């Protein structure tokens, strides 16, 4: 349900859901049919109550490479502080899906989460601990990052560890061999798509089985067409989805869909990313941290990107989508002081360096973090984010979780199935948006 850390490339049978996850979710589901309230009380036991030498950490870094990154971070902390960190890892997508229940039940002291509206939502529900006092001692973060960590009430609830840009990724070696140039405008992009199709490849690798990856393409086209302000306002429920501006986004997208990999709703993004790696697809709209996992070792150098082409001259390529991942402390933390000590470390350059030693698809947010080991790819990602006029998070981080998961996921999937029926689709999204945004939280 979120963009971010993926599975290690699965070249054969690929499913991001383990059987245990399904069983747990099934059990939760069965319980939910019965009584939602009771379940909240019986979360999993995270142990370690009141022991100042142990702090628990709920992690959604379940995929091999990010998981190794978190393990390196926690090892570094345990060595320097003498405190034991107990890591409870859950499968990435199901961590997000169960977050409400998790935070209301028996959460870990510190947990991994995302900046933006998605953080503010849970902070506003009183499920996260105020860490403004930790922030007063932090260095190396820009005001923009602090703002991304601040809730609606002006207090901080989040520390970032890295962000990563969404853009159009491709293999330079393939493009050089074919003589293709990164397009700068929509017209150039369309022309290139035709050329690529003529060469027997899919122009865009595309997957939306998990529901969220297609949101990234919508964000790009909307911000290029209507600008950042309109996009954020739309995400906040302040614009109408039947606005001709929104219709134009879907029409542009529909004109490009024939050049996207077919069968997207049955494919996970890992397989789409692999098709770029396997030279079956020419490019892919995704996050750098995701596709980089398909390009390991010697292939890592053969990955480059360009910003999504300009559609409207008024907005150019100003906006960059760069989701921020990081950590929060749960309100129910058993060991608040130890949790604050840990989260302070997580915001330090040392933690970011430890993470980068294992996972180099992302950009550390702390300016004190070492960039000496950066690849050319990482430097380019960093410069791209630094040069942004505006930075968005991602659809499911910029809007309400219920709207993203219950309205936009099915709607984008039906758009992919039936791109011709834009009017009725938008009418339906609009009706549901009005209803959801009318309820208060």
């Amino acid at each position, binding site marked *: 349900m979120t963009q971010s850390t993926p599975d290690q490339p699965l070249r054969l*049978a690929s*499913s991001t859901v383990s059987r245990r996850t399904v069983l747990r979710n099934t059990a939760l589901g069965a319980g939910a049919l019965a009584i939602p309230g009771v379940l909240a009380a019986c979360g999993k036991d995270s142990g370690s109550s009141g022991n100042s030498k142990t702090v628990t950490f709920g992690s959604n870094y379940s995929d091999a490479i990010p998981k190794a990154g978190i393990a390196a971070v926690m090892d570094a902390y345990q060595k320097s502080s003498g405190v034991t960190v107990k890591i409870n890892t859950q499968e990435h997508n199901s961590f997000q899906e169960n977050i409400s229940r998790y935070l209301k039940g028996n959460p870990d002291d510190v947990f991994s989460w995302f900046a933006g509206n998605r953080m503010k939502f849970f902070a506003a529900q009183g499920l996260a601990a105020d860490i403004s006092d930790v922030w007063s001692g932090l260095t190396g973060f820009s005001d923009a990052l602090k703002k991304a960590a601040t809730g609606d009430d002006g207090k901080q609830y989040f520390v970032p560890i890295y962000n990563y840009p969404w853009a159009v990724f491709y293999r330079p070696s393939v493009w050089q061999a074919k003589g293709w140039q990164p397009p700068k405008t929509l017209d150039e992009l369309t022309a290139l798509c035709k050329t690529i199709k003529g060469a027997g490849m899919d122009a865009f690798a595309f997957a939306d089985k998990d529901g969220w990856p297609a949101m990234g393409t919508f964000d790009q086209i909307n911000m290029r067409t209507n600008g950042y302000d309109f996009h954020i306002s739309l995400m906040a429920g302040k614009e109408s989805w039947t606005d001709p501006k929104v219709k134009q986004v879907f029409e542009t997208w529909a004109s490009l869909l024939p050049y996207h990999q077919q069968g997207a*709703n*049955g494919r996970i993004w890992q397989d789409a990313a692999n098709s770029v790696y396997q030279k079956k697809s020419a490019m892919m709209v995704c996050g750098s941290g995701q596709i980089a996992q398909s390009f390991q070792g010697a292939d890592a150098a053969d990955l480059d990107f360009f910003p999504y082409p300009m559609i409207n001259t008024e907005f150019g390529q100003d906006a960059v989508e760069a989701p921020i991942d990081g950590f929060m402390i749960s309100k129910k933390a058993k060991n608040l002081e130890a949790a604050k000590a840990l989260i302070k470390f997580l915001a330090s350059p040392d933690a970011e360096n430890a993470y980068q030693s294992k996972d180099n698809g992302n950009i550390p947010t702390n300016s004190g973090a070492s960039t000496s080991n950066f690849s050319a790819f990482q430097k380019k990602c960093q410069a791209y984010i630094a040069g942004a006029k505006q930075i968005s998070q991602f659809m499911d981080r910029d809007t309400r979780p219920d709207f993203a998961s219950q309205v936009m996921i099915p709607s984008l999937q039906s758009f992919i199935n039936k791109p011709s029926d834009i009017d009725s689709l938008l009418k339906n999204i609009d*009706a549901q948006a009005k209803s959801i945004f009318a309820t208060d939280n």
Partner: protein
Amino acid sequence: MTSTQVSAQAPAPQASVARRRRRLSRFTRRDIIILAVLIGLPVLLDIALIWGTTLTSIGLSFTDYNGFSSPQLVGLHNYHEIVTIYEPFWRAVRNNLLWLATLGVFATPLGLLLAVLLDKRIRFTRVYQSIFYMPVVLSLAVVGFIAQLVYSRDYGALNSLLGRTADPIDFLGDPSINIWAILAAAAWRHVGYVMILYLAGLKSVDPALKEAATIDGANERQTFFRVIFPTLRPINIIVLVITVIEALRAFDIVYAVNSGRNGLELLSVLVTANIVGEASRIGFGSAIAVILLVTSLGFVIAYLTQILREDRR
């Protein structure tokens, strides 16, 4: 008051008291305590876990409860939204009905047919039984994973078998066909289940009935439909109930395949997605749960009236 235990064993002085008590009630105090525990505990659990939760769900379905703030009554608002603008709902209803129809019209008769064939003591019957029964020991979630290996557009076995590697069929991603692909997998499992139930039933049919029918000149078809099948009535009822339950509670297989989206919506999935998911629309999800409950009650009531009417006869 004296101990009834003592009075039961040593009747001497309190015998008349005990006898009077026994006339009032045939139960000793110990019996009453045991009965109270044996009946009371299940009743309490039943009230707490079944009635309590059901009524809570019904109550919540009329609110906008989101798990955080205190619930506000919104009347029939949730129900109205579900049937008007919540697009996945009608797809889920259609899929649940398809599920019921496929299991009932196709899978169950096929299971019966297999049972009848295997009951004929053909060679290797045990082997066939094992093969058909095998899927039943797998959980539907596992069947879902197997289905993905078979149906996947990019690496699935079925497209290779059909020779459609250049232009593969998107069995799981195309919402007009993925429900059928999944139903085939679910039916594959259901057939084995029904088969084993009927096989057990057929083994218990008195061979004398068959002989009598043959002597009376009935052919094989008549023997089966007029004589054998009616004697299988208890099995028929079990199979019917299982089929309905399987169709209404279907969840894990579609959840394993694509979280029950994009053509694989089911009522159970929508309930879970709304309540358990990050969305936490508990009031809304409860309303879907109530709709599922009412649908199930329809089947339960129809079934019970049928049973009671037949028993009265």
